[in-house]
């Protein structure tokens, strides 16, 4: 059973088949759509009027031999009893289970808690509803200056909307890529006409039936037609409760992506992949972390498929060594206006971040070091040089 029918789930099923799994595979999904690619939702899907077919992942059904149960989310799991309960009341038994339920957007509640005109962006349905609301000249407030907030700002600005970004942090992306990088991103957005209200929060909404504006923590009122909340995400782990697992932030796994209980014992049959998996570092003595980057579902799914095949039929994966540890290189890209950021590793761990090449105002590469060791690199442009450095990162 694979719970979560998006990229992480699909790649797990593909990996199982690729490594020789012959048993039945079922994917259970909360959404009513087959797996599709999320990153275009904040970019081309909105900007260029793409359809669901444009962003759907190609699936080789004959090879995959998997059953998809869609629009029926998992509601309960009993690991000892090997049963998964769905919203419809259906119960399924399993030999192995893979948790791939990803994240949902965080939402605020305000004293005047209007709903009309308010948006979040995680799913195709969210994107479609947002696309239906945007038009040139619309006034948009984006709450949050993370990657999704900034990408939306750029896309909607290009479509002719007026953009005000409100964020608690003083410098956008500073917590992820450092102050220098963040200031430069802000400068480039301002050059395109995006307005920032930083170090501030939204205290309340203005309007009677639909949103007409927001009140900031310093009393400023911003008029708007649309409010988009892009203030981070919450892992979808509710359905995993009752099994003694550590669900404090996603689901904690061991070095092989087997989920762990609060006593530190690994399950032998339940795994986690993608955005919800909180897995340990190999080279850094830091607490386990989740990574919300697109390549993590791919890498973790590949890994888990191989682990399950090995466990199911000893000898099927002759090159699998005991003691192997999951150690992916996180990689991230983000397109905003003509800015295209590419990053490898985890720059946020760094305590120094020197410029390696180029000019901040143009194309450049920054390296991120923690106590001297390379933990990340990031840049705008200069792809070849950036790609050369990625092999030196240690996490």
């Amino acid at each position: 059973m694979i719970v979560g029918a998006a990229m992480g789930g699909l790649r797990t099923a593909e990996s199982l088949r690729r490594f020789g799994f012959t048993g039945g595979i079922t994917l259970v999904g909360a959404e009513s759509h087959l797996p599709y690619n999320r990153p275009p939702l904040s970019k081309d899907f909105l900007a260029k009027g793409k359809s669901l077919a444009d962003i759907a992942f190609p699936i080789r059904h004959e090879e995959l031999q998997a059953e998809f149960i869609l629009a029926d989310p998992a509601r309960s799991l009993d690991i000892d009893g090997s049963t998964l309960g769905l919203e419809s009341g259906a119960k399924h038994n399993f030999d192995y289970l893979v948790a791939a339920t990803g994240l949902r957007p965080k939402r605020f509640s305000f004293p005047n808690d209007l709903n009309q005109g308010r948006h979040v962006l995680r799913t195709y349905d969210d994107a479609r509803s947002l696309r239906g609301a945007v038009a040139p000249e619309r006034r948009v407030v984006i709450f949050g200056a993370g990657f999704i907030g900034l990408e939306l700002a750029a896309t909607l600005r290009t479509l002719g909307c007026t953009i005000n970004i409100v964020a608690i942090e003083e410098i956008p992306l500073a917590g992820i890529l450092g102050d220098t990088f963040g200031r430069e991103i802000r400068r480039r957005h301002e050059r395109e006409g995006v307005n920032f209200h930083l170090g501030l929060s939204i205290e309340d909404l203005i309007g009677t039936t639909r949103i007409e504006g927001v009140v900031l923590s310093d009393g400023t009122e911003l008029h708007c037609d649309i409010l988009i909340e892009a203030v981070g995400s919450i892992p979808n782990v509710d359905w995993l409760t009752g099994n003694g697992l550590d669900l404090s932030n996603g689901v904690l796994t061991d070095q092989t992506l087997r989920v762990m209980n609060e006593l530190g014992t690994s399950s032998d049959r339940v795994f986690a992949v993608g955005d919800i998996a909180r897995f340990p570092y190999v080279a850094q003595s830091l607490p386990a972390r989740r990574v919300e980057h697109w390549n993590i579902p791919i890498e973790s799914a590949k890994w888990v498929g191989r682990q399950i095949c090995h466990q199911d039929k000893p000898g099927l994966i002759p090159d699998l060594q005991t003691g192997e540890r999951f150690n992916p290189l996180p990689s991230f890209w983000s397109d905003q206006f003509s800015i295209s950021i590419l990053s490898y590793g985890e720059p946020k761990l760094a305590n120094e971040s020197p410029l390696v090449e180029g000019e901040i105002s143009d194309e450049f590469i920054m390296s991120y070091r923690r106590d001297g060791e390379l933990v990340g690199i990031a840049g705008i442009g200069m792809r070849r040089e950036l790609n050369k450095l990625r092999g030196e990162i240690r996490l």
Partner: protein
Amino acid sequence: MIKIQVDMEKCQHYGQCVYEAPNVFKLNESDKLEYTATADDSELANVRAATDVCPMQAITIVD
């Protein structure tokens, strides 16, 4: 022999594919993607990996 196609309208020249299948994909002097349209069967696993990691889902293996 496998046949490879990259939709250059979609490709943003991230170079993720280069890392997975260096014999097939490379970034040229001006950071643009270049690739060989055919490759030996022994490259299939690498090209499939490249297809998976391409952020723009621009690569297809033509059957």
